[in-house]
């Protein structure tokens, strides 16, 4: 850690113009993040041309502020209207929405905001001290290691299955099958497109997510209409829980921050998987597991700390190697390059001031998100005072518009509607919806890493066990799967 350059970086940050740009960017990021269909990547792409006229530090400040706040912004509609603004906040809706429905929207927003900031700051600290070392981990994680990690991640389906693992597995399989639609990335063959050309691009996570969660909610409430106002909103606003309520969730907070940072460092896994896995892990080890899905703050914290921790994690390979951790960091990388900053092995030695500035900007962005989020929540939670019918109408409009703008494809609209109908039936059948999303987002990397692993081992799967990292993850997976069975067998014997 070079402290002179850190001081220099703080000096750059203290520039009033940079700070003002960051405040504006935080607002913008939050709003774009909150609009379904327009995620982090869109928010970054929108401001990209603006950064060309700014100085490099102003541009970095703007982009980090957008990056951090858009991930957070997605959770606001997830809580208030059960429409995740970005795929990253799908897991937040699981407990956030029930909590808001029971009249505790202000608390839910409080948990989200603080947990997001803590997750983000945690990953920023990791990035600050360990970026060059951790970047090597990212390189060591090849196809085989990724495959082992994804096999392990798939076990989380069991934890989000709400006491019915069989139905959970069924839902997970539906997700995996949906992930195979489109051109196969390895052979170029079209699969399950039924001659429809637009389907050759495959299904996109946003329409599926919006259909399953948001539209099916609308259909369900149309089936059982509620009159009047949606939630029992006692106090619209923003309320941070007292310190003693944070004590029981501190382990979850830390665990999710670690999960998010780690998955962020690895390419190809991403924030959506991180928040779902963070949620599932919290549920598996929580004392109050039975109240998950019914408005447990631990569930909200688990999801939000994880998805915001991805931000710092994904910047590790981006800055240290010039290899973006996800689509969002790819846009940031592009912007940096345009400003004449080339991330990669030489950046840390060549311009330590600038690297430290990124850390400081990330910290400031997280603090700004906390403040702006707290202020804006006053406004957001008033949504719940609208009549139910009006909100549901709005949800339909937002859902369809959000799905369409993802790729400007008519097929995506149909996918949303079909996913909505599917979601309605699955709700009636008590099949959990979250495993579909897990299956869908992990299905493609699962298949691709397996097949790439087979290509490099010359079609000998046993050679997968030559990788110590892979063996470790296979062993953990085996233990996680076997443990409940062993525990049951032992209980039966006694």
């Amino acid at each position, binding site marked *: 850690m070079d402290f002179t350059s850190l001081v220099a970086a703080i000096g750059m940050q203290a520039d009033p113009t940079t700070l003002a740009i960051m405040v504006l960017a935080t607002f913008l990021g939050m709003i774009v993040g909150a609009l379904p269909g327009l995620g982090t*990547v*869109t928010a*970054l*792409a929108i401001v*990209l*041309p603006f950064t*060309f006229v700014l100085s490099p530090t102003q541009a970095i400040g703007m982009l980090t502020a957008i990056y951090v706040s858009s991930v957070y912004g997605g959770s606001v509609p997830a809580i208030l209207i059960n429409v995740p603004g970005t795929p990253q906040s799908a897991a937040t809706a699981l407990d956030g929405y029930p909590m808001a429905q029971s009249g505790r929207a202000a608390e839910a927003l409080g948990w989200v905001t603080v947990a997001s900031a803590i997750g983000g700051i945690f990953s920023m600290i990791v990035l600050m001290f360990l970026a060059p070392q951790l970047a090597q981990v*990212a*390189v*060591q*994680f*090849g*196809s085989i290691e990724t495959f082992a990690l994804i096999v392990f991640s798939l076990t989380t389906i069991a934890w989000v299955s709400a006491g019915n693992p069989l139905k959970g597995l069924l839902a997970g399989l539906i997700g995996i099958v949906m992930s195979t639609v*489109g*051109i196969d*990335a*390895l*052979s*170029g063959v*079209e699969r399950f497109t039924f001659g429809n*050309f*637009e389907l*050759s*691009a*495959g299904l996109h996570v946003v329409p599926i997510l919006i259909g399953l969660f948001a539209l099916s909610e609308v259909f369900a409430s149309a089936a059982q209409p509620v009159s009047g106002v949606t939630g029992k909103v006692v106090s619209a606003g923003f309320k941070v829980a007292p310190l003693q309520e944070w004590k029981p969730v501190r382990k979850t907070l830390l665990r999710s921050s670690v999960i998010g940072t780690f998955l962020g460092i690895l*390419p190809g896994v991403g924030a959506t998987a991180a928040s779902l896995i963070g949620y599932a892990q919290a549920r598996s080890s929580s004392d109050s597991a039975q109240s998950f899905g019914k408005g447990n703050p631990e569930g909200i914290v688990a999801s939000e700390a994880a998805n915001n921790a991805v931000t710092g994690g994904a910047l590790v390979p981006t800055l240290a*190697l*010039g*290899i*973006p951790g996800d*689509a*969002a960091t*790819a*846009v940031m*990388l*592009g912007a940096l*390059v*345009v*400003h*004449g900053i*080339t991330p*990669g*092995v030489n950046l840390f030695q060549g311009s330590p001031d600038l690297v430290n500035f990124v850390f400081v900007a990330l910290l400031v962005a997280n603090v700004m998100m906390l403040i702006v989020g707290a202020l804006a929540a006053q406004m957001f939670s008033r949504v719940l005072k609208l009549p139910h019918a009006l909100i549901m109408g709005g949800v339909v409009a937002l859902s369809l518009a959000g799905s369409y703008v993802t*790729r*400007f*494809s008519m097929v995506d609209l149909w996918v949303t509607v079909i996913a909505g109908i599917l979601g309605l039936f699955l709700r009636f059948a008590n099949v959990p919806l979250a495993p579909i999303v897990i299956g869908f987002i992990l299905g493609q990397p699962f298949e691709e890493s397996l097949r*790439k692993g087979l*290509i*490099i081992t*010359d079609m000998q799967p046993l050679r997968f066990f030559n990788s110590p990292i892979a063996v470790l993850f296979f062993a953990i997976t085996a233990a996680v799967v076997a443990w409940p069975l062993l525990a049951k067998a032992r209980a039966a014997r006694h």
Partner: protein
Amino acid sequence: MKILSTLGCAAVVAATGATAVLAEYPEKPIEVIVPFGAGSNSDTSGRLLINAMRKAMGADLVPINVDGAGGTIGIAQMARSKPDGYRIGYAPIATVTVQPNLRPLPYDNTSLAPVCMVANNPTAISVAPDSPYNSVQDLIDAAKSGEQIIAVGGAPGSMPHITQAALANAYGVTFTYLPAGGGGKAATALLGGEATLAADAAAMVSQYDLKPLAIASAERTEMLPDVPTLTELGHDVSLSVWFGLFAPKDTPEEILDQLSSACGQAVEDPEFVKGMTAANYTLQYLDRTTFAQFYEEEYARSRDLLPTIGVAVKD
């Protein structure tokens, strides 16, 4: 009254014919389809071009990312649009030459009207910095002795895929192809030891500190002046990755001319030059006539090349 005057205007416009209509082009924002996701290579350069053309035309151009299937979804949407100059597309070589020769698509070379070319990037055969291979011949000898040589790049039909196949074919060997993705993903596979070589953009060499073995394009590049071309090494493999603007066929000549000359101004724009150079692009402008000829040659070359290098071709 208002309706009457509008009708009157329309009548005048209709009477004076096409030129009057065109004099007003563009009277609304022009959509530019970028057939890859935000943050991708094509997106970065596409947005730079769009910004510069916005200045050159004094009109609004809007980038629209229609991602999917190697860029074919976006270009198909563009090709099927009304040929009125209000929807054009930005595409790299593979989307408009290799892909339509590889699979049945709703478009081919006859559905597109080339507008201009803006960049032409050299490609290089590179390996990891600690790789035991120090020349193309080393790689070939290893492949001949039965070692598994893994080439990494984008999906089937991408330029790295075609280039490595052309290289292997020229030397009479076969590489195992690992479609792990281009650019950063390919570099990760090389640095992590999963793959042996990449036949990708020459700019990747300095970006990721790789070891270059040969240039796979027609001429040596200023980026790597000491690295020989494959042609110099005795094999005629020369492929480069160019980027250009296209409109749907039957777009009026006047509009194409206007777009092409605006594009010509845009590539001179200092901000565009700075941005593209920083993003490691080698600029080369071709106006619509020259580009149309070049595109036809490239299309025919791709059609002839694919079967000879063992890449499946549609009937």
